[in-house]
């Protein structure tokens, strides 16, 4: 999937990042420079450091070395509380497991995103998202009454609720069939475009390769032609 009118401003910049879990476990992460409005796929098999990379990009795991800038802000130079607030306002996160809060309704889950970020709870926006993502009828229902597809849509709606400048999605399609995968990717890219946000998807799902113009391959994954590609290499078909 290609984006029109992409600007040159770098929204996300990761440089020289290394994370050591212990003396024997070190994850060396590729440098990244993702521009505003860009849709970037990070592809890698299990154990290649996808989750570590995504957590670092989300500001929830401080790298042992290196620097992350989002919209020109050095995220890990901030105090933790400021970083929490920054994340709430500027980064939308989508997880493989939807992790909706079970005790509150769909609408409340959306408003929760604003509340936790300390932002105004825009009920109109939450309702609009419910309509756009076809969960209007379920807006007052508890998550346990939703289908997997509906939960995924709520999860996407929650991620874009605060109009973030960066949307990070972790394995959003790994357990879906081809049809549902197409739908979810379409929804994600559409919502990212609507919010004017940069989209970064981390996955091992090779079906997504053709949907993204910008790809970063982790762990020497084989390319589409079966030849191995360099770790962290950016691919521009």
């Amino acid at each position, binding site marked *: 999937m290609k984006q029109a009118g992409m600007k040159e401003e770098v929204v996300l910049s990761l440089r020289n990042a290394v994370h050591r879990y212990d003396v024997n476990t070190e994850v060396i992460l590729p440098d990244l420079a993702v521009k505003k409005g860009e849709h970037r796929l990070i592809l890698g098999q299990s154990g290649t450091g996808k*989750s570590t990379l995504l*957590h670092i990009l*989300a500001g*929830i*795991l401080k790298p042992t070395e290196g620097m992350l800038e989002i919209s020109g802000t050095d995220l890990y130079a901030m105090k*933790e*509380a400021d970083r*929490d*607030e*920054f*994340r*709430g*306002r500027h980064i939308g*996160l989508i*997880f*493989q*497991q939807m*992790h909706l*809060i*079970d*005790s*509150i309704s769909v609408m*409340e889950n959306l*408003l*929760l*995103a*604003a*509340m*936790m*970020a*300390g932002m105004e*709870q825009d009920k109109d926006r939450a309702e609009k998202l419910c309509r756009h993502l076809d969960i209007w009828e379920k807006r007052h229902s508890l998550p346990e009454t939703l289908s997997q597809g509906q939960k995924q849509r709520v999860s996407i709606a*929650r991620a874009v609720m605060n109009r973030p400048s960066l949307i990070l999605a972790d394995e959003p399609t790994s357990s879906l069939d081809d049809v549902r995968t197409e739908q979810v990717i379409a929804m994600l890219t559409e919502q990212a475009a609507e919010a004017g946000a940069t989209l970064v998807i981390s996955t091992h799902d090779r079906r997504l390769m053709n949907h993204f113009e910008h790809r970063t391959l982790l762990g020497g994954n084989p390319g589409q032609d079966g030849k191995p590609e360099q770790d962290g290499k950016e691919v521009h078909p």
Partner: protein
Amino acid sequence: MNLWTLTIASLRKRALNSLLNILLLSLGIATIVTLLLVSTQLEDNLYENAEGVDAVVGASGSPVQIILSSVFHMDAPTGNIDLEEAVKVIRHPMVERAIPLALGDNVRGFRLVGTTTEYPGRAGAELSAGSYWDYEFEVVAGSVVAEALNLQVGDTLYSAHGLSDAGHVHGDHGLMVVGILAPTGSVMDQLLLSAVETMWGIHSYEVDTVKVDSEELDSATASAADSDHDHTHAHEQDIDHHAQDDHAGHTHAKGRLVTDTSYLNPANLDEQITSLLIEYRNPLAAAQFPRFIMDQTNLQAAAPAIEITRLLGLLGIGLDAIQIFAYILIFASLLGIFIALLNSMKDRKYDLAIMRSLGAPRRKLFTLFTLEGITLSIAGTILGMILGHTAVWVLTGTITEAQQFQMSAFRFLPEELWLLGISLAAGLIASLIPAIQAYRTDIAETLTKT
């Protein structure tokens, strides 16, 4: 959407668990509140009823029994004392005031007390209807008695021998209600008062009394209190009571004219009374008067202040035991809240990680968990208070002794506010460890484990 709605939603999600914790805590609190209400009101009532009474002089026996029977009208008296001996006490220079009490009869369980008009006056009682007695066999009813027996001025009652609702009914001596007291909140409300001579008059004709069962007694009293008042109570056979008067349309036999001092007439010296309520002339009397009673009479003097303190001390042992049990209940329930919150913390670690990923600072999650603990403890405390007051309300409605002490379920004690504060603090403490764990939630580590 705010932390409060999130707290309520979370507790609602674990409704059964939350409810059980609230119930357990409320049982402990209810026990404490009931004990507080009963013991405080009992103590207040005991001291209030004894106010102005420095000593009670009665027949030798248990001093507690003398106080209970003569001040609180709860127990049987230790016996009677000769008026001749009582007069020596009344005229003692250290006695400022001595009020005679003659007990021994009841009307449907309410005690009939032969005394002087000083007795209700001492308790601050005022008449809400009618007047005090001028003649033998005229009675003034306490407010509770009047309400319970549906009495009005002009009604006629029949007393029975003894202090409980059974015994020989003095069917030949109708007692006319001439006055009704306004509520005092003291034992006065539960009594029927008359002149000392009334008690002597009733018993001087015991040879003529008839024994009736309690059903007949009820019937006799009820018919006497009937609102149409068209029946006649004539006691012409009472040779001393020949005066006739018309009360509200019916004829009633009257006794002799009486005053507050007429019972001291030398002609009555061979009679007996039950006790004397003594007010000292000066504080020195507290040391000297009991010695006089002990050394120079066959009577006994008991000081209400001392006996009440002793009685409350004895009661206190039982109350303390119940209180300890209640505190154990409260502690168990707080432990329950702690365990529930800890389990909830474990169950919701992904929720917490998500909230953190949505931008929630650590302190927000800490607040969320402390709010849950505090909400549970406050809900349990408030429910406990409601249950405690309800228990007192049921007690006062069903147990005669509680009615006698004029206990109110609607009285709120400052200690209850303390209880609420302590409970709030305990809820906070119970939620502290889960809240700290929530505070320490590591988003990356938690989400990686999914």
